[in-house]
């Protein structure tokens, strides 16, 4: 015998799992701090790669000047400059990512909360069914 209430509940759960729930549940699998840390790590890696590419491109652009000043160049100052810019960019990115992740996970947790509530309903429903039998 088909039970409409149960089907409604299961449909709601299933639709969520297939759509927004996918990301939410993945996010929910981590502790909040771990999830933020993971995103920060990813950001650091991608920003670093991008920065290296930009450095190479800038270096290539100024190739002639660099070759001309190869000997008398202040490498320390140049290194410090490159590093400072890198750290500033990285800091900006980390702040943005931490902030964005925080908001994302807060919203996701609310949705997951509703999902768990529905799951509990379903569990109770099965319990009732067992008792009836």
């Amino acid at each position, binding site marked *: 015998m088909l039970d409409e209430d149960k089907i409604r509940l299961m*449909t709601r759960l*299933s*639709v969520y799992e297939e*759509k927004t729930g996918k990301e939410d549940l993945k996010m929910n699998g981590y502790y909040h701090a771990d999830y933020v840390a993971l995103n920060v790590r990813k950001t650091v890696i991608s*920003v670093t790669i991008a920065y290296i590419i930009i450095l190479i491109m800038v270096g290539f652009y100024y190739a002639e000047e660099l070759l001309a000043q190869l000997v008398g160049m202040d490498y320390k100052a140049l290194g410090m400059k490159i590093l400072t810019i890198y750290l500033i960019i990285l800091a900006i990115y980390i702040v943005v990512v931490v902030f964005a992740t925080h908001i994302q996970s807060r919203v996701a947790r609310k949705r997951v909360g509703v999902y768990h509530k529905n799951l509990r309903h379903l569990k109770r429903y099965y319990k009732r069914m067992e008792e009836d039998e």
Partner: protein
Amino acid sequence: MNQLLEIKEKMIHVYQKAGIILIPVLKFLMGFLVFTMLNAYMGYDSRFTTTEVTLLLALFCAFVPVSVMVLLLAILTLIHVYCVAKILAIIVALIFLVLYLMFARLSPKQGYAIMAIPMLFPINMGYLVPLLLGMTASPLSIVSACCGVFVYYFLIIVRETAQISVNNSVEDILALYRYVIDGILGNKEMFLTMVIFSLVILVTYFIRRMKYDHAFGIAITSGTMVMILGFLFGNIKIALESGVVNMLVGCILSSLLMVIIQFIRLTLDYTAVERTQFEDDDYYYYVKAVPKIRVTAQEKNVVTISSAREEKDTGRAGAFRENEPDDLQLEAFELEETVGNKKLAASIEKIQKSTYVKNGVNSIDAGSSTTTGRTLAGKYKSGSSSGRTGDLTERSAAGKYGGTSSSARTGDLTERSAAGKYRSGSSSGRTGDLTERISTGKYRDASSTGRTAAAAGRTTSAAGRTAASAGNYTRAADAGKRMVNAAGKTAANTENTRKTYWGTSDRRRVDEELKNLTSFTDDINDFNPIEIEKRHTSYTGRYGKK
């Protein structure tokens, strides 16, 4: 406006019916358009410009997320550039990589913006994208919009550079590279566009989030104004390549298109049909969940021909009928249409309801709609019915034959009727439920389980009342208990009524009336309109028009 709403309705229907096919088809068309434009713009590699390849790529895009389409476009661009200038292709690849790592990955969902701006700018509609992003996305989409603008101007430079023949000497490569980078960094129009688009997104986003009437319309207008003013001011310093007139036309057309998109967007957002599948221990479920929608189109009205007064009378009964289950509604309307007289129809219903006279239950149910009540009123003074939102309270006194009171709370209907000495029953129904219990005084065994009283000829009570309820039906056992309660509660009332009217007044007359009613019912059952008409006139004449 109504026409627009109806178009919207039609769109919802089409979307709900064909959504599963429509989306891939639209994606296919979009893919085909985008790849064709790319081929027209920089189709250097003739292997990839053929219609077959374009169709295949578009077909592939129909079934994958938009981000994959963006990736495909980037790869195809690289292939075309590689075909004419290998070094340039490397530069393009590096710049695309930086774009992705630094910016595009921050807002992957707005990948379509990166693709849309370069595709829409050539047809002067690129101004639509920041408005759309402001209306639909978060301020983070500024990143995507800027990436899109960058890609557009970058591709212009790449296209120009690709024409330059380059030798493989280091000097030539360096010169080419510098030309490209200078072209990007020196492109003030690009930066101006980025700044204006960012402003438009911010303005549109914040205004549409405000809580006042027409916030969406104001947001679109303000966004467009910011865009036009921005470009006009920008034009003082940097002459726009496309020209001011083109920009103005583009902005205005984009905002108009945005209004249309906004009009249908919300509808489509919330009418998505969900298809899902799951299983439990017993079944596999393949569920199609269709969201409920509001009907904005005009509903069909059933016009019945009757006099003004009757219409007034039947107003309530009509309202009840709307809520009745279909079969009953049909039946009721059939009656009305055939005889062409609602009042008569109501009388008929009343009489039909009283057919349980036949069952030896000498009670006349009082719980009927106002119309019915009034029609037969007379000495059976039927009640008045009053309904609040979702409530129905009826009190009817069935004249000599006892009084009935029925009250229904929100969604519930409880009726208690006492039919003189022969206590009438009680019926109660919950929201969407109909529970009828007819207690029949000393013949108390007759309980009926019927759809509605309006189910003519059946032994039911309360056509009007039952209309307010629908759904599950009586459980006789439960009915018993309630009947006792009802009987108890109405006992005093009944006793009074009996003393007042019944005890002394002539039973003979009552019997005569009942007999009359029974034969009237027979006429109705035989469906003899002439006889019915006569009787009806006689009844209304005798029992007044109260």
